[in-house]
């Protein structure tokens, strides 16, 4: 006779993902195989995990089986730059709606900027984000904390206490840390806690009231321009400060060839420097502004074709470490305005993967390279344990069809805001299923025709 003690944990749920093309950018693995998860962890990955007869009826012992039908199974995307608008501007987006958008986009971890209302510059607000993420339970949500109090660029926040509370790094969000001495101290101080300083690399005085890339098009449209030099000089300045302090620096959304060149050189020197870009900087150029389309108003601005090609080149040679969506939800009131008055930014969680796959279909990146920039490398920069398919790793992954012809449709966006310049764009590649913490958090077509039986 046996007694189950009350409250004994039920055995963790086991799920076998069969018949998958396993893609792990961390190890370079690209092969047919299976993944077995138990609870929130991957317990095994490989080509021959199970005896061939075990799954004769597709129902392995005490494990649920999911047939991937030969589709790609890769680590869940780690989007290292999103704006969630919660707390404070929930009419544009909130953590729940952004989580749905992320799951639909194959994103299992997103890292929020601290430019909310109030600004995340205090331990209690870092805790707030963690608590909301747990409550929602659809994606992992981490947050950067503000590097300076109120994002005012003057006084350092409690970096140490917030690092201990789980801040992923420090940044002033969409504002540059403009003062060289503040940047110096932030880099120096954050180094003690092993955290990165993420810079919005744009010299604010030079960018001024600019609304788009400075050049012929801006001049013809009669719009104030933001010269590429605003980005280049800030990156170059910051690299000097990295050299001085030994700090860890990450340049967000680089958009110019010369800034990328400066980072390439710094990496060769051995400085602790990384950077990311966003899909619009390789998928679009300044001509997308066209006839004052405010959905093409982003910060930094879309650059000219030479810079766009330099971004592609930077991704191809690995100078650019990561691709982040730079998801920036804005409601219509903020975009239906004269171009100069409209808000900067576009949403991106749901278009991150298909736009990145364009680089693969065009032959610029290998599939594993693109996936690395979307998962393994941002996870490594931030010290997250995800971003890889390996025993013991979190069971966070995306199952996708890399070739499926598709079209980006605003109507399908789960984000509360719809500000995307990519509406109607034909793409190749679609997310079929997103698994986070061992649970299916998105399944293509599931909401239209709930078949049940598989997944959650």
């Amino acid at each position, binding site marked *: 006779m046996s007694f189950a003690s009350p409250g004994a944990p039920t055995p963790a749920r086991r799920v076998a993902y069969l018949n998958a093309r396993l893609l792990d950018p961390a190890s370079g693995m690209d092969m047919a195989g299976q993944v077995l998860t138990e609870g929130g962890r991957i317990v095994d990955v490989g080509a021959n995990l199970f005896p061939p007869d075990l799954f004769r009826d597709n129902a392995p012992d005490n494990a649920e089986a999911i047939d991937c039908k030969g589709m790609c199974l890769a680590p869940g995307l780690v989007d290292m730059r999103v704006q969630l608008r919660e707390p404070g501007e929930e009419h544009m987006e909130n953590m729940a709606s952004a989580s749905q958008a992320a799951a639909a986009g194959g994103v299992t971890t997103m890292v929020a900027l601290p430019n909310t209302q109030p600004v995340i510059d205090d331990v209690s607000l870092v805790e707030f984000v963690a608590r909301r993420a747990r409550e929602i339970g659809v994606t992992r949500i981490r947050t950067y904390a503000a590097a*300076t*109090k109120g994002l005012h660029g*003057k*006084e*350092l*926040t*409690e*970096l*140490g*206490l917030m690092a201990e509370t789980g801040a992923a790094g420090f940044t002033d969000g969409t504002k540059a840390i403009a003062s060289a001495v503040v940047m110096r*101290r932030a880099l*120096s*101080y954050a*180094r*003690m806690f092993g955290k990165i300083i993420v810079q919005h690399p744009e010299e604010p005085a030079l960018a001024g009231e600019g609304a788009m890339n400075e050049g012929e098009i801006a001049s013809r449209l009669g719009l104030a321009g933001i010269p590429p030099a605003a980005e280049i000089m800030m990156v170059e300045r910051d690299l000097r400060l990295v050299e001085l*302090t030994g700090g860890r620096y990450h340049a967000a959304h680089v958009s110019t060839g010369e800034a990328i060149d400066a980072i390439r050189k710094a990496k060769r020197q051995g400085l602790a420097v990384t950077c990311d870009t966003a899909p619009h900087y390789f998928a679009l150029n300044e001509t997308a502004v066209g006839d004052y389309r405010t959905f093409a108003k982003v910060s930094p601005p879309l650059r000219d074709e030479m810079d766009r090609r330099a971004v592609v080149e930077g991704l191809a040679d690995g100078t650019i470490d990561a691709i982040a969506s730079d998801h920036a939800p804005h409601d219509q009131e903020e975009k239906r305005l004269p171009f100069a008055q409209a808000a900067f930014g576009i949403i991106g969680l749901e278009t991150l993967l298909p736009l990145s796959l364009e680089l693969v279909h065009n032959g610029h990146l290998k599939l594993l390279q693109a996936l690395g920039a979307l998962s393994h490398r941002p996870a490594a920069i931030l010290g997250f344990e995800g971003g890889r398919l390996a025993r013991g790793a979190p069971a966070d992954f995306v199952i996708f069809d890399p070739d499926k012809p598709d079209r980006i449709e605003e109507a399908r966006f789960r984000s509360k805001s719809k500000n995307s310049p990519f509406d109607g764009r034909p793409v190749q590649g679609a997310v079929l299923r997103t698994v986070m913490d061992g649970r299916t958090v998105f399944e293509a077509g599931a909401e239209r025709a709930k078949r049940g039986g598989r997944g959650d």
Partner: protein
Amino acid sequence: MTALRPGGQRHYPYRHLLGIEGLSPDEIHFLLDRSETYVEQNRRADKKGSSLRGRTIINLFFENSTRTRTSFELAGKRLGGDVINMSVSTSSIKKGETLIDTAMTLNAMHPDVLVVRHSESGAVKLLSEKVNCAVINGGDGSHEHPTQALLDALTIRRRRGRLDGLTVAICGDIAHSRVARSNIHLLNTMGTRVRVVAPTTLLPNSIDRFGVEVFTDMRRGLEGCDIIMMLRLQTERMKGSFVPSIREYFRFFGLDREKLAAAKPDALIMHPGPMNRGTEIDSEVADDIDRSLIQEQVEMGVAVRMACLEILAENLPDRSLRNAP
């Protein structure tokens, strides 16, 4: 350079005491040995000596100070000297007189020793070049505070019987501290192992070239230490400029029971004062009579300053003295 007279006696061969850097172990021991003789005298009911009788000592303080000025004043008076205090509020500096004009004016009054504190590094040396008397640096900017280092050394030497072979951790605002610099020079000269513990923003550039071990993790920095010297952190430096906040500073760099546990079980605690309780040091630790040497440091301060005043006064007629090490 030798600190021995032809007869083999130690001595201090300089006209001024401007800093510790450059002094030899023998010279430092000579100053400490003389200081030692005054510790007992200061504990007696009759504390009065006469070796400075007829001497005029001017405490010239361009920067506010109560403790150091009082300590020098008592030291001079206990040896029978005439001590005059000039602080910035009563001086003519506020009327626009330059530092050198002030020095020349005072020099014309024939003082024997000037004790000078100034907020600018190097100001005391500049002044010393313009006067005929002896000058003691009572603290210049972020440069040196030699009598503080000497009184710290005397305190340690009396408690531990030696300076060499000990490990001392100096913790806090190293970048702006003259106390830290003078102590680093003195302890290094005497064969003490010196560590500095501070957030990166409060470490001066190239501090590793001072012959110290550098730590930004306080527990690791205190591991195996015999002596912990806490430094005062000025409030204007902990509001987001060098350090984010008081509570964060205390969390990572404040000396409390928990961090103290990393040091040797009998490690002793020092602080040059005045303390910011709850910023760099927890009251429980600061007031622990078994561990805290803070009151003893104040006592040793008077003895050290008596010795310094007396030695410089003895040297005064001697024209063969060098100006500074």
